[in-house]
């Protein structure tokens, strides 16, 4: 079975494939950017941790975007970006080749 990562699986193949959270929540069509179907909290880059630019030298150039599952509220991705940049589509599986991964090696 294809998956974006340990938390997000792709169920089905081709145009009907959907991305599904580990909790069972159907995130959205696998052919689209999964992040657009999640809840997002955008805040200062300091939200990423206590030692992230604590003196604020970067001003407000960068933001921390946290993406949560609408079903279970699990954190599914954290993206650091310049404020004006679009949400990055970081993982795009080739759904035309659903059997591409050979798992025979175990």
């Amino acid at each position: 079975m294809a998956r974006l990562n340990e938390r997000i699986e792709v169920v089905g193949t081709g145009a009907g494939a959907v991305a599904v959270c580990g909790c069972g929540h159907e995130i959205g069509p696998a052919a689209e950017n999964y992040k657009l179907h999640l809840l997002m909290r955008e805040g200062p880059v300091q939200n990423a941790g206590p030692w992230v630019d604590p003196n604020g030298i970067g001003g407000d150039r960068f933001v921390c975007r946290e993406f949560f599952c609408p079903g279970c509220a699990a954190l599914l991705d954290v993206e650091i970006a310049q404020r004006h940049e679009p949400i990055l589509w970081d993982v795009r599986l080739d759904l035309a080749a659903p059997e591409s991964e050979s798992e025979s090696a175990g």
Partner: protein
Amino acid sequence: MTDTLAHEALSSGSNGSLDPVTFEILRSRLSAINDEAAMTMRLVSGSPVANEAYDMNVGLMDADGDCFAIGMYITIHALALSSTVKDIRQRFEAADIGPGDVFMSNDPYVGACHQMDVAVVAPIFADGRLVAWTGSTVHQIDLGGPVEGQVQLGATSIWSEQPLFPPIKIVDAGELRPDVERGYLRRTRLPHLVGLDLKAMIAGCNVAMARVQDLAGRYGTDVVLAAIEGVNEATAARFRARLRELPDGTWSHRGYIEYDEVYPVVVEMTKQGDSLIFDYTASADQAGAVINCTRPACVGAVVAAVLPYLCYDMAWSPAGLQRAIEVRTREGTVVHAAWPAGTSKATTTGSFMATISAGVCLSKLLAASESHLRQFMSTWMGGLYVEDLFGTDQRGEFFGAAILDAMAGGSGARAFADGLDAGGFLDSPSAIIANIEDIEYSYPVLYLSRRIQADTGGAGKYRGGNTLAMTYIVHGAERLPVKILHAIGTYQPGSVGVAGGYPSNTNQFVIKRGTDVRALLAGGGVPDDLEDLDGKLEIFADPIVKTSQGPDDVHRYVAMGGGGYLDPLDREPERVLADYTVGAVSVAHARDAYGVVIDSDRVRVDAAATEQRRRDIRDERRLSASPLSGAGRSDPS
């Protein structure tokens, strides 16, 4: 002379393929020759950069200059050596490349990663035939230019950076050319150190030369040539098989270089069947100078990322990998500089971020694979801080130094375990940092502290490795008149978290001026951190700073940790407590990021409070986050 066994090893096939046993013996031997060349270089060099921090490497190339074996140090040098040899092959008449010749170059537009990484290469002849090349490189502390050290602050093009020299012959048929050596050393502020490093690099080449010739003498030149081609073929085949085991798709990342503005290094990695394409064409246009890298350095940077992520169980033959990898760049960008853009700090900016960005894509490729998930790692230290010091040392002599302690970055979280604290950095499997005592012996400084800093690794079910923080003062000299502090990852954390893991901390450097540290030390005390000292804190907003340090000033920096993996709320509370007990996580961070409430008096987890805290965090997430669906904010590319 060849023995019977070796003759039998050379099969009758037209490609001269070897029997597997002989092949493995020769493959291992060639790798060991590299190790010995690197060891020789370290022992001859007097530079702490080579000897203590291993900012160097060696490589073996075939007759055409393709690198078939890279040493276990800074891996990006593989392509630098290779490109330099190819340039020599093209520019010099065959008759001018002979036994005992050694060439050197620091020209990034030829192959050097940046001007400071001088490439020294030598042809290896056996039976009168050119069979291979050896190469070595050590980061030099000063090679001239208007500003001391590597970072040519204020440069607007390569014309205001360190002077370039395309490949020149430094050793002619075994004889060092004193005129060329003198011309080289004339341009540095540190002729003794740079001169010794030059001899060290030549010594490394000499050892590799002699050992490969011995090998050819014992097994036969044709057998050695077949082994060299066999290494490339075996690695290419094994690498392509590895790719076929992994899912197809496209992974993207934006990394950033802070300079006069922010320069994104954007990569799109497409993996199809047994090929891998890295497309950097959307990266930022180049700066005038300092932060760009040339195309050979970008290609080397990709190889440096692919080796640790996908090639952990095969011979490190960059030439073999390159048969399955395509790197697309656009001339005039920070990762493919157009002449005469400057490149003096390339290895900690352009090519560094090219490696990190490729690495993020590779980590997410592994994260998408069930069968290879155990090889997954989040980003290792995604931005390197370096400090160049110049002045008069405790012996009254002029000195120059590159303090490379920040190489002890945190490694990325794995899918089954945390990243390593002070694990190093991805570009070098042998990364170490100098002992404090060696630094204090060499330079007029006294460390007050150097330790693992809690909470610097990205939070996650598995957290990123923490990095170190350190403080030091001037010692044995009046002051440090020239300090050039430089880093990327100061505005934003370069170490990315994956699948819900948080990124690391950022690089930070400050100086507390005019403190009471001397009085404290005289009274037998040692400050635990800057908070224990009176004085005025100077925070540097620029990612590159030229400053000085007086007798009462305390310098502190914090390097960069590794990225985390998976939602930190899924971390077992007992693991958080274990981190707390060894000083890896604070009580506040345990509560805020992990939702774990630690009873610090009794050193135990408050289970009920933890359960409630985690419920509260999830509720807070639902309240503070909004749906995006239909917003159309995704990058259309």
